[in-house]
């Protein structure tokens, strides 16, 4: 039992499991709560000594101009259209608010629970087909216009394609917004929205959708940030991009596209207890990693995202704080089901078992990632390290290959981008995988491409001759496996043919309570652990480097960065 307790404690310290899972595992081992509590404290103490902390200095205070060095420029500052990661992840989140959010500024545990933001409460009908959102009264957009049920419905009509229910789309309907958000509105199968009063919106769905609420704060494929309809009425989509207006703790001040974006504290923020601490935030696009680090060292910026891994140790020595934390990220491969060698599940398993993911995490990526043990991101409620994914075992992999008739191995091609959003260090990681696979006889030839060219090839689905490709993504919402694993999904780029996934996903999507949904989505993960169409590799901890002048910084446990409690000491 001592070994099992040790394992659980190690997993907790490394961020592999939540405090809740830790308690569950130890309770199952028969430990009493006081003993578990003391172990939790011990875990917290060890975690405090780990190279990467979750927070910076949490000193109370306010003020300052926080300067953030971003790894690329933001694109359009429209919550329905901005698809670039830095656009929605950092910039838009401070300006716009969604109906619901997640607990991002809590340094404890994993903030995967949905929390109301501009919604006061949500009622779900017993049949799971009606959701009633009670909005916060008295909220206004930063242009002074009221935030109410009409504004919510106006924003949703901009991205919800009503023509699929036989109705006419609203004038503000935008095809691009609808396309990027279709992953949410198509399974939601919404029939209509109604507003019984100015602070209530009722969503009527054709059938239950267990991820209706948890899917709302998801980004990556559009967001549900609410913008002022008045801006659009004055100047259309271009006006939203030029003068973004939301209800958030910061308001747009100015931008030089591709260079600098300045937002200022919203002095009339509706929730005074959650008002912004910094006077101003300046986002600076610094695409060159060396330049970002130089700017940080010279004191020109206070925070840099995506720092070069090899610089982290020296930055810490120079007094900067490196933070890192599990988030929904998953770096994964998809195997092409049309290639004959992958037809046998033993071959797919053998390939997975040949990859030394822990070695990649510690040696190649210096502990800035964790080895993946699930097809879900680590913040997803259905994430578990008990889904049944095999350990690294090249000897067993060789045996499996021999049993499947591939004693001499086989040749395959791996398509990979040279860089891109959330890709970490894709070519080096692909070379690591190819090196490991070669040891069991799988000879991989890399085919590298620039990001947009790659995205084009990836989105078209793998063609003949391509054995596998790669993507980085994940969601805190449990809906995520529907995207790469449902047979009819456009993101099933490997053409996995197993309808068992569809059946389990349908059950999970239509579950009426979250516990049932968790169990069902875990069953999907377990099926993948057996069938191995999606090969999970690592989860990024997304290190960030901050200046000691930055106070109140909490490393997010989601994609979004909440900067309202951050301030800068003079």
């Amino acid at each position: 039992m001592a070994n099992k307790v040790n394992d659980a404690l190690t997993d907790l310290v490394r961020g592999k499991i939540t405090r809740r899972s830790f308690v569950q595992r130890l309770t199952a081992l028969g430990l009493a709560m006081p003993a578990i509590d003391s172990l939790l404290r011990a875990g917290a103490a060890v975690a405090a000594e780990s190279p990467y902390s979750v927070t910076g200095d949490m000193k109370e205070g306010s003020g300052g101009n926080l300067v953030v060095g971003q790894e690329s420029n933001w694109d359009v500052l429209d919550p329905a259209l901005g698809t670039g990661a830095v656009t929605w992840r950092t910039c838009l989140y401070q300006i716009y608010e969604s109906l619901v959010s997640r607990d991002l500024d809590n340094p404890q545990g994993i903030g995967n629970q949905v929390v109301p933001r501009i919604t006061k409460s949500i009622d779900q009908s017993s049949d799971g087909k009606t959701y009633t959102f009670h909005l916060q009264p008295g909220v206004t957009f930063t242009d002074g216009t009221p935030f109410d049920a009409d504004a919510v419905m106006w924003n949703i009509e901009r991205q919800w394609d009503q023509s699929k229910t036989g109705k006419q789309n609203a004038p503000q309907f935008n095809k691009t917004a609808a396309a990027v958000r279709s992953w949410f509105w198509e399974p939601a199968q919404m029939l209509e929205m109604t507003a019984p009063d100015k602070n209530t919106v009722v969503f009527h769905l054709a059938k239950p959708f267990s991820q209706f609420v948890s899917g709302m704060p998801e980004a990556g494929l559009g967001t549900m940030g609410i913008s002022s309809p008045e801006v659009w009425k004055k100047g259309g989509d271009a006006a939203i991009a030029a003068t973004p207006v939301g209800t958030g703790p910061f308001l747009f001040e100015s931008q030089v596209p591709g260079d600098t974006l300045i937002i200022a504290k919203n002095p009339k923020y509706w929730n005074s207890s959650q008002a912004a601490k910094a006077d101003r935030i300046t986002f600076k696009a610094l695409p060159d990693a060396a330049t970002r680090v130089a700017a940080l060292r010279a004191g020109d910026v206070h925070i840099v995202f995506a720092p070069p891994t090899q610089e982290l140790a020296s930055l810490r020595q120079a007094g900067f704080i490196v933070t890192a934390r599990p988030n929904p990220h998953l770096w994964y491969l998809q195997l092409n089901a049309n290639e004959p060698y992958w037809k046998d599940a033993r071959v797919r398993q053998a390939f997975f078992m040949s990859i030394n993911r822990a070695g990649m995490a510690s040696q190649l990526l210096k502990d800035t990632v964790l080895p993946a043990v699930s097809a879900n991101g680590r913040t997803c409620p259905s994430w578990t390290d008990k889904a049944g994914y095999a350990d690294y075992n090249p000897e067993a992999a060789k045996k499996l290959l021999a049993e499947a008739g591939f004693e001499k191995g086989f040749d395959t091609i791996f398509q990979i981008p040279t860089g891109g959003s959330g890709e970490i260090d894709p070519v080096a990681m692909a070379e690591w995988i190819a090196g490991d696979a070669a040891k069991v006889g799988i000879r991989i030839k890399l085919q590298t491409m620039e990001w947009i060219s790659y995205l084009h090839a990836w989105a078209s689905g793998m063609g003949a001759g391509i054995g596998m490709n790669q993507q980085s993504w994940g969601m805190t919402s449990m809906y995520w496996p529907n995207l790469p694993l449902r047979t009819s999904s456009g993101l099933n780029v490997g053409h996995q043919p197993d309808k068992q996934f569809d059946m389990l996903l349908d059950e999970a999507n239509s579950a009426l309570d979250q516990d049932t949904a968790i169990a069902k989505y875990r069953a999907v993960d377990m099926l993948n652990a057996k069938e191995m169409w999606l090969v999970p590799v690592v989860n990024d901890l997304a290190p960030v480097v901050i200046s000691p002048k930055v106070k109140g910084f909490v490393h997010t446990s989601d994609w979004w960065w909440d900067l309202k409690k951050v301030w800068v000491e003079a």
Partner: protein
Amino acid sequence: MLTYLAQRVAAAVPTMFGVSVVTFALLHIVPGGPVVAMLGLAASNPAAVAAITRDLGLDKPIWEQYLIWLKRALSGDFGMSTEFHVPVLSLVGPKLAHTLLLTAGSLVYAVVLGTIIGIVAAVHYRSVFDRAAMFVTLVGASAPVFWIGLLLSYLFAIRLGWLPAMGMTSIIGGSSPLIVLEHLILPAFANSIISMAVIARIVRSSMLEALVQPYVLAARARGLSRTRQVLVHAFRNVLPDAINITGLQVGFLFGGALIVEVVFAWPGVGYLIYSSIQARDYVTLQASVLIVSAVFVIVNLLADMARIALDPREQAA
């Protein structure tokens, strides 16, 4: 002179047309387009890709797309950026001015320091200074601009803290002309090094040639000082070569500025082109390349005119 000018301007028209055709064609050859960049991972939805491609007019034959673009461009409408959703000219205009400022700063360094080094090396032919200068210029001409930029940034911004590491203005201190000048020092110097080395070597060799000409001997015979022999008599005859190479270097400095901008986060047209390629923002890229090409044509024309104005032999020809 006017006839020459008219001929050069007339020759610029087909050049610009060719640039626009080649840029347009190259953009469409590269896999992935603005729709994929706009949709990101949602590009896996073929119906959405088709609908937006149609809306943007990208389903039309490439020649038809080009003619539509040309017609609008000739009336001054370069369209809206598909990445930022703002008019392209409002993006390119200010950034072009920033790049020209960086180019001008680099040119000042290259011409002033390059000329001084070249003259001193020639006057002190085969001295320690001459050998050292030629070695340093050889290394300077061979070193990548981005590497020099990072070294300068590390030394003067991080180690010594004398100069800012990036940007054109201070985010906290504002944007007075003095602050812009302070930010210009490092990127302009980094960008100038290769051109400085080239100018120094050309000036040195021209000066060596000039110093043995009979008119310099005559000047010496008349008892003129060494400085006067060099700067008044020999240097005037070095000038045409120096201007010629400087004219060529302006284009090179402009091109180099595009790289230096990324290293020093200088908000110029170089980074705009870089990000437009990444985002497949055809509209911005097309306008940027065309405007940058126009600048190249104009700069080369001005350099030629300056050379003619300063060299009586050219005027006679």
